[in-house]
């Protein structure tokens, strides 16, 4: 202990470093690492920014193109929907006109069935000694033929209407 107490103090060498005032111009490893890390960080930053901006630009172009396509499709769909609605309206008119014709055709068919029955009676009872059945059949036939003529006049008018509707319908079909 006495030896230690009397010996001169040993100077402790301070390690070189950023705080070393004795070596202000010396660049430490720490600085090199910091510089390298910064450069790497900058490189990563540049890469991320370039890739990000490129990706953003591409995505924006793609989005704009798809938006344009959607707008165009909307216009096309609206036109198509309008045309379809018009077509349905025309088809409904055709159906209504056909309904009128078919209703009259039903009546004509019923009349024709009765006329057929009258014809059968006339043929089957022509040779009867008593002509009353034949004559009655002829009378009924005359009335039915008159009614048939009336119905045919009506159905011809209905057919004209139907043909006009069909012509408009066909014209629209050709146009579309």
């Amino acid at each position, binding site marked *: 202990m006495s030896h230690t107490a009397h010996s001169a103090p040993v100077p402790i060498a301070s390690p070189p470093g*950023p705080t070393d*005032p004795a070596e*202000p*111009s010396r660049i*430490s490893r720490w*600085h090199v690492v*910091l510089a390298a*890390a*910064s*450069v*790497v*960080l*900058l*490189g*990563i*930053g*540049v*890469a*991320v*920014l370039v*890739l*990000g*901006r490129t990706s*953003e630009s591409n*995505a*924006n172009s*793609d*989005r704009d193109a*798809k*938006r344009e*396509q*959607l707008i165009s*499709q909307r216009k096309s*769909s609206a036109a*198509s*929907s309008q045309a379809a609605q018009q*077509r*349905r309206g025309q*088809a*409904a008119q*055709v*159906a209504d006109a*056909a*309904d009128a014709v*078919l209703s009259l055709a039903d009546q004509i*068919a019923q009349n*024709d*069935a009765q006329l*057929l029955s009258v*014809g*059968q009676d006339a*043929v089957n009872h*022509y*040779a009867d000694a008593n002509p009353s059945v034949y004559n009655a059949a*002829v009378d009924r036939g005359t009335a039915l033929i008159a009614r048939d003529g009336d119905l045919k006049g009506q159905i011809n008018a209905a057919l004209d209407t*139907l043909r006009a509707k*069909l012509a408009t*319908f066909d014209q629209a*079909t050709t146009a*579309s």
Partner: protein
Amino acid sequence: MSRNRSPRRLLSAGSIAVGVVGVVMIVLGTLAFSSAFAARDDAHRFATQRRSLAASERATEEHTQTVSLQGRNVGDQIDKLVAAGNQLVSGANTLGTLLDQADAQYNAGNPRGAAADVDNRGRPTLNEVQDLAGRESQSLTEAHDAEQKLREGL
């Protein structure tokens, strides 16, 4: 003051500045990626909507085409009905003429000849008229079916 401008400090300051610029670039790049993802989502949404609209438009066009075909079919069936009706009228007129001729023959004092005519020519004509009436009835049913289909398609 000269110690503050030492290469070591300049390097430190430069490194930090470059690092900060790098971080800022990374942040900006990330924001750009985020914006790109949002744009891609929008593009995907637009594409989905466009496909949906296109599919809907195709369905509408197909439906319109079906309605057009059914409308034309109604016209065709009614034309057939009219043709069948005209044939029936023609057959019925033939039968009527035949009966008129038989009546004339009967009134002229030849009842047996008239009866024979009605029997020999009237019956086959009547059968033809019955066939024609059957065809007209079938045409009428087909025309009703066509009109019904058109109505259902509207």
